[in-house]
C-alpha cells in the first residue's frame, strides 16, 4: 500500500507481525495443549515442555503382604513402578521421603527387618525378605523417573462426565439458539419501518435506538429481576425460566439488530421498492418478497453476533437463570470450577476449551459475515 513496502524494512514488518501473532495465539494454544496432556505431567511442567521427556519425582506404593510369593525359602513382592506407562526410565529411588533419591537403579536398599528392595532402570522392582512379610499396607517407594510425553483425551472425558460440563453445554445451547433466532423477525420488521416507511416520529425513534445501543445492561438487571419475581409470584410460576432469559436476550439484542438491519435496508436501491409499489404491492409484500431475501447478509451478521454474545454471556444467565447446579450455562460452570477446582488445571483447561470451541467454529466458518457486521455496526464517525 505504501510505496516503501519493498525496502529491506519489510523483514522488520514480517518479524513484528509474527511476534504479535504469537503473542495473540500462544495463550489459547497453551490452553489447548495443556488440556490434552496427562494430568500428572500437566501439574509439574509447563505446556511448552509438552513434547520433551519430563523428569518427575513420584511415589509408588508396593502391593501389601498378601501379594507375596514364596520362592526358594524367601518371600518376594515384585512389580513395576512405571505400570501403565509405555516407556520410562528410573534414574534414582529411595524408600524414605527424606531421601527419595538415595539409590541408583540396580542397587539394593536395605529396608530393615531383613527386607531388601531392588529397583531396575526399567522400573521393575522386587522386595525380598527372609521371612514372611506382614501388614496390609505396602512399602512406599520413592523414585525419580524420566517420563516420555503423554497425550490423552481423558481430561475431556472426565469433565464431560463428572464436572457437569456436558449438562451445561446443553443448557448453553438451549439459551443461545432461540435467543438468536426469535429477535430476527421482530427486528427486521421494525428496521424496515424505520428505513422505508414514512410516519411522524421516525427520526426520534431512530435516535432512541441509537441511544439504547449503549445503555449498560447493569441498568436493566435490578428492575427486571423485580419484574420477573413479581410475574412469577403472580402467576405462581418459577421466576427463573428459559422463556424469561430468551425474552431478556431478545430485548437486549434488539437495538443492535434494528440498527444493523436499518442501515443495511436503507442502503438498498429505492427503485426496486418503487417499481414494486407501482405494480400494486403493499409494504408487507415488498418487505416479505423483496427486502427480506435481499437482507440476508445483514441478517447473518446479526445472527452471528447475537449467538456469540448469548453463548458467551455470563451476567444475564446468572441473574435470570440462576446459579443452581442444574441451570448453569457453560460460562457460569467455568466460573464455579475456577472457585472449586482452582488448582486442577487439567479440569479447567479442558472445560475452558469446551466452552470456547463452539464460538471458535462459528468464528472461523462465518468470519466474513462477522467482519461485515462489525463494520456496519459501529456508529460511523463524523
Amino acid at each position, binding site marked *: 500500500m505504501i510505496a516503501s513496502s519493498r525496502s529491506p524494512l519489510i523483514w522488520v514488518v514480517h518479524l513484528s*507481525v509474527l511476534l504479535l501473532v504469537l503473542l495473540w495465539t500462544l495463550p489459547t494454544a497453551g490452553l489447548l495443549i495443556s488440556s490434552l496432556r496427562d494430568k500428572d505431567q500437566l501439574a509439574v511442567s509447563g505446556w511448552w515442555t509438552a513434547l520433551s521427556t519430563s523428569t518427575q519425582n513420584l511415589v509408588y506404593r508396593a502391593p501389601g503382604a498378601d501379594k507375596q510369593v514364596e520362592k526358594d525359602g524367601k518371600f518376594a513382592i515384585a512389580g513395576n513402578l512405571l505400570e501403565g506407562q509405555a516407556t520410562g526410565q528410573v534414574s534414582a529411588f529411595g524408600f524414605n521421603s527424606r531421601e527419595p533419591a538415595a539409590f541408583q537403579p540396580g542397587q539394593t536398599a536395605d529396608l530393615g527387618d531383613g527386607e531388601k528392595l531392588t529397583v531396575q532402570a526399567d522400573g521393575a522392582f522386587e522386595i525380598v525378605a527372609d521371612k514372611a512379610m506382614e501388614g496390609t499396607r505396602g512399602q512406599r517407594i520413592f523414585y525419580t523417573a524420566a517420563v516420555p510425553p503423554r497425550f490423552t483425551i481423558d481430561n475431556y472425558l472426565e469433565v464431560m462426565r463428572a464436572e457437569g460440563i456436558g449438562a451445561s453445554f446443553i443448557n448453553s445451547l438451549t439459551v443461545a439458539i432461540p435467543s438468536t433466532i426469535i429477535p430476527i423477525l421482530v427486528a427486521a420488521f421494525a428496521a424496515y419501518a424505520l428505513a422505508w*416507511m414514512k410516519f411522524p416520529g421516525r427520526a426520534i425513534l431512530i435516535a432512541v435506538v441509537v441511544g439504547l445501543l449503549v445503555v449498560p445492561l447493569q441498568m436493566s438487571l435490578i428492575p427486571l429481576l423485580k419484574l420477573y419475581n413479581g410475574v412469577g409470584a403472580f402467576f405462581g410460576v418459577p421466576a427463573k425460566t428459559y422463556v424469561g432469559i430468551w425474552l431478556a436476550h431478545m430485548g437486549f439484542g434488539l437495538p443492535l439488530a434494528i440498527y444493523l438491519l436499518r442501515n443495511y435496508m436503507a442502503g438498498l436501491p429505492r427503485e426496486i421498492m418503487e417499481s414494486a409499489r407501482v405494480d400494486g404491492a403493499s409494504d408487507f409484500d415488498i418487505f416479505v418478497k423483496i427486502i427480506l431475501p435481499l437482507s440476508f447478509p445483514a441478517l447473518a451478521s446479526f445472527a452471528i453476533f447475537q449467538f456469540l454474545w448469548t453463548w458467551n454471556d455470563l451476567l444475564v444467565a446468572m441473574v435470570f437463570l440462576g446459579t443452581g447446579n442444574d441451570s448453569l450455562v457453560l460460562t457460569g460452570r467455568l466460573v464455579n470450577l475456577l472457585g472449586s477446582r482452582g488448582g486442577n488445571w487439567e479440569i479447567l483447561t479442558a472445560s475452558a476449551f469446551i466452552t470456547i470451541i463452539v464460538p471458535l467454529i462459528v468464528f472461523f466458518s462465518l468470519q466474513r459475515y462477522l467482519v461485515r457486521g462489525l463494520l456496519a455496526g459501529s456508529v460511523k464517525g463524523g
Partner: protein
Amino acid sequence: MQQLLFAVMTMAAGVLACAAYFYGTNWVLDRIFPSKGLTGKVASRNLRITNAIRPWLFLGPAMVSLTIYLIYPVIESVWLSFHDKSGQNFVGLSNFNWMMNDGEFRQSIYNNFLWLLVVPAAATFFGLIIAALTDRIWWGNIAKTLIFMPMAISFVGASVIWKFIYDFRPEGSEQIGLLNALVVYFGGSPEAWMTLPFWNNFFLMVILIWIQTGFAMVILSAALRGIPEETIEAAVIDGANGLQIFFKIMIPQIWGTIAVVWTTITILVLKVFDIVLAMTNGQWQSQVLANLMFDWMFRGGGDFGRGAAIAVVIMVLVIPIMIWNIRNAAKEMEGR
C-alpha cells in the same frame, strides 16, 4: 436432550407466532380498510389510513420489547436508587451519600478510571499498528484472523486462559504459568500476580486488550483501505517517508474511525464484569463498578437501592458517548 427439544420447539413457536402476528395484523388491516379494487375517495382515504397504521404494526413488537427490557428499567433504576434496599421507602440521596464514603466504591471508581485510561488506548494502538503492518505482507489476512480470534472467546474463557498464564507456584518448584516461568528464566523470583494490589489491575486489563485488539484492527484496517490512493501518492511524490505518510497523511484521515473504536471499547470497559468476577472477584483491590453492582444485587439478600445507585453511576458515565453517537447518527441521516 429433552430440554433442547423444548428449546427448538419454543423457537419454532416463537418464530411462527411472530410471523402470524405480522401476517395476521396486516391481513386484518387490509380487510378493514380495503383499497384494492376500489376507486375514488374511499380507496385513497383507506390507503392513507393503512399507510398511517402499518408502520406501527411493524414496529409494535420491537417497541414493546425495548420498552420492557431497556426503557422502563432505566427509569425504574433511577427511581430505585433513591430508595432503600427493599425498594419500598424513599431515602433521598442517602445511597449516593453512602457511596461517596464507601472505600470499596471509591476503589472501584479509581480502578475503572485506570481501565478507561489504559484499555481503549492500548487496544486501539495495537489494532492500528497491526492493521497498518498486515496490509503490507502477503500473509496479512492469516495474521489478522489469528489476532481477531480472541473476539469469539467469552470473557470467562479468556480469564481461564490468562489465569493459566499467571499461575503461581512457590519459589523453587517448577513454574507451569508462562509468565512466572519467564520471570524465573530471566533470574527473577515468581510472583502471585493476582494478589499484587494496583498492578493486578493491569494484569486483568491485558485480558480485555487481548480480546478487543482484533475488533479495533478490523475496523481500522477497513478505514485505512478506504483512504484515497491519491493523497498517499501525492505525499510520496513530495518525498515523504513511510512513517511520515502514516502519521501525517493516513492517521488524520481516519480520526473519525479511531474515535468510534475508542468510544466503543470505552463503553465495553465501563461494563466489564466477567473478567474481574472470574479472576479476583474484586479482591486485592481490583474491584470495578460493574462487579460491585452485581455484588450488591445479591449481598446480604440483595440491596436494590445501592445496586441501582451504582448502575446509575455507570449510566451517567455512558451518557456523553450516547449523546455523541446520537448526534453523529442524526448528522448521517441528514445526508440521505
